[in-house]
């Protein structure tokens, strides 16, 4: 199945995408089914009750288990920013339309403002804080001046990372497609693509060099 706006020359991504997440959550009436259903067997689950009020959950962020207090309605973005002080992911639209809060969940880009923190339990989360200054992608962003005010940049970096991880040597069309969920008001798109291209050409793997 090919969505109408997929680039003709691009392979479909594996796993869940933002699109399948949205479809999943729209179709499912079971709370929190969207992502969990993608990886867990469809066995009946023991009913659990949370809220009102806060409770503690464990999130696996950048390879570390972190405890954070959330309400059932707390988004992953708020849990990261307000609960764990991981403020790289930005809150810009809070409606899944700008990509400023992009993080990787099991290696796939997700708008963390559209995912409930509880739905992220049990998944590997990667945020921009995992990338250090020596990371080839970060180094390329700086070298190509792929940023101005910098507010969209962490989200751009994460979408760029996913683009590189999935495609290796992406074409311009593929890059534009993979960045199409990330808005930048300063107008850095061209230089972000140059940064992706430069990283791909360097042959060095991005997203592996340790940040925080």
């Amino acid at each position, binding site marked *: 199945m090919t969505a109408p706006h997929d680039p003709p020359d691009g392979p479909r991504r594996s796993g869940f995408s933002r699109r399948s997440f949205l479809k999943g959550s729209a179709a499912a009436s079971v709370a929190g089914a969207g992502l969990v259903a993608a990886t867990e067997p469809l066995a009946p689950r023991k009913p659990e009750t949370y809220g009102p009020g806060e409770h503690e959950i464990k999130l696996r962020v950048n390879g570390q288990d972190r405890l954070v207090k959330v309400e059932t309605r707390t988004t992953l973005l708020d849990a990261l920013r307000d609960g764990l002080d991981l403020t*790289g992911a930005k809150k810009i639209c809070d409606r899944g339309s700008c990509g400023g809060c992009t993080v990787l969940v099991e290696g796939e880009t997700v708008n963390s403002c559209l995912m409930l923190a509880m739905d992220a339990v049990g998944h590997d989360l990667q945020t*921009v804080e995992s990338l250090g200054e020596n990371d080839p992608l970060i180094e390329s962003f700086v070298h190509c001046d792929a*940023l101005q005010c*910098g507010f969209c940049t962490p989200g751009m970096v994460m979408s760029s990372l996913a683009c590189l991880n999935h495609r290796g040597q992406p074409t311009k069309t593929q890059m534009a497609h993979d960045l*199409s969920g990330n808005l930048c*008001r300063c107008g850095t798109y061209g230089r972000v693509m140059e940064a992706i291209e430069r990283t791909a050409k360097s042959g060095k793997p991005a997203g592996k060099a340790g*940040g925080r």
Partner: protein
Amino acid sequence: MSSPREKVEITVGYRSLGGQPDRLEKRTVDPEAGDAPPWDANTKMQHVGGDHSRVDGFAKATGRAKYTFDVTFPGMLQAMILRSPVARGKLTGLELDDARKMPGIGAVIALKEIGSQVRFVGDAVAAVAGSNLNLVRDALEKIRAAYDAESHIVDYLQSPDAPLLASDGEIDAEWPAEPEIEAALAAGKTSHAATYRTEVQTHSSLESHGHVARWDGNDLEVWASTQATFGVRGELSRALQARGLDVGSVTVHAEFVGGGFGSKFGAGVEGLACCLLAREADAPVKLMLDRFEEHTTTGNRPSALMQARAALDEKGVFTAWDWRSFGGCGFNKSGGRVAFPEYYVGKAKTRNKHQDIAADTDPARSMRAPGHPQGFFGAELFLDELAAKAGIDPLELRLRNDDTVIRRDQWQFGAAQFGWQQGRAIQNDPKARYWRGVGLASARWFQLGNAGRPPHGITCRIHQDGTVESRSGAQDIGTGLKTVLTLLTAEELGIEPKLVKATTGHTGDPSGPGSGGSTTTPSLAPAVRHAAFLAKQQLVELAAKHLGVPVGEVTCGNGTVGKGTAQLPWAEACKLIGPNPIEARGQRFNNYREPPFHRGVCGAQFAEVQVDSWTGLVKVTRMLGIQDCGRVIAKKLAESQVLGAMIQGVSYAVHEQRIMDHASGRMLNGDFLRYKIAGSVDLPELRCIMHSIDNGHDNVGAAGLGEPPSVAAPAAIANAVFHAIGVPVRHLPLTPDKVLAAIAKRKA
């Protein structure tokens, strides 16, 4: 001016872009006593103008940079504002107690008195701070506000002050009688008249407006997403004292700012609310606007309605230029003025009338080159229509009328680089689906910086360990002030930029201008140099004493300090400094009294579009921008600003418009799903060429770059669409409905 001034001869102007001669001139200037000697066109630079990277790029790209939105403190509360749902009326009731009683709510304050006027949907009524935003949202629902709504108008064209529009979109009103202009129009061989429109554009900064406020007794510390740290400081201090608060010190921080584009010069009601909530709750408070508030309460580029009529003589030179414009403003009826490129009509009889029209919406604010993208769209498209009538190539018409030497060179160079002639030779098959076209437009701005009152300053410190600090209390909103401080300081001291640490955005440091009107770099660059120059003199004195040579013979450069063979490496020289660093405060002197090479900056942009004649979709495929900004300091950063402005221009030309619901007075597309800004798939093949010019107006010669590159792009794109489809679309944005209607009109 009691101190003696020394006259200095310098070379100003620029070397050929290619194809035209060098434009270099000798000029004698007289810098104020104590200022650093001027750089000129013959100064050899180590760092300035080079390909250095943005110094805070790593902090931003790794997410470590802490913007106001990211600042947090233990016990900090979050806050939101209750907004008016009516566009016009009176607040008749406000019950806050139920919200106050909620657990987790720290403070609830009224921002409007009962009986006062409500001016637009989104006008601030009350504010709540609580332990998290979910709770605060719950609390806002417990506030009971009542209004006496009055009838409103949110479309300025429906105002009784607005002129009537005929069904073809033309202003349906007589031009005011003036025999001279009528005579000049009649004297021309070719004449034309047409009406143009633009819609409201929101700034859409990605970091919304907002603050974090923390009181320590009567001392207030504020983190602000702002373009004017000192402006916010002054406004808050005044507003809090006006409310009877005993205010000690007020310190503002804005180390990183997520965009502003002209909307962030004041603390606003949200800043005041944040400080008042923090005082009442006795806890730090963060209040950041959400996206709907950002779209609807923080200003915008107002819409414009413009009508031009003009005539050309047999040589294609203007004999008359008659222009009237109307600005579609907010309730305060201000800020809608538009600008047009008057350098085309310098010899013609001209007239220019403007009228602002109020509507019941939030007030307009300055937005990147206020008045220019809208006015230049109208005027430059008008020029192309007139050129078509007269049978003159659009580039030729501009060359015949543009009286600016710099831009004439830019036109000719740009046309060759872009392939203008080939582009204009495109013959579109009327039966084909896709039609191509090319267009061009001009840009200008006037900013060469100013001294400030009292003068702006910069602190430069040289430490014993060889590191250097350059500090400004002004803010870097993404335009690269930190990089500018770093490169200028390194250049003046003759050291590597990595030894310099630039700090911006704390009001504890010397004052600088608000970042508006392209003022920051030209206003601060000479002070940065002056600070480094003064610090260098102190180091030179230490080195001279140590080396036993006369001070006047010691130089500092290429990483060493000394005379002849007696040289100390920079690190060794700095060891002569005691535990207290060398500290100098540089000053921004007035611009030289002699006229600069050019009083402002010039630019020219070219665009190529592809129009889908079936769907009406405009795709901008290629753009070229030639832009000067006086002396280029950080080349990569300057290019980024120009490229970014071109993309913003694409966005304004084909996507952006605020859509209001006339019945409720509410913005219908106050988000990023329906208010569309250009994304990665809209990106044309972009190229920009920085045109570095030595203006000779101060010791650096930088000119403003924020506004100028955003002036021409929408006009160039509109002209390219006119070329592609053969009829002008006189109403931005160039959405498919308008393009299809224009194509249908041509077929009819």
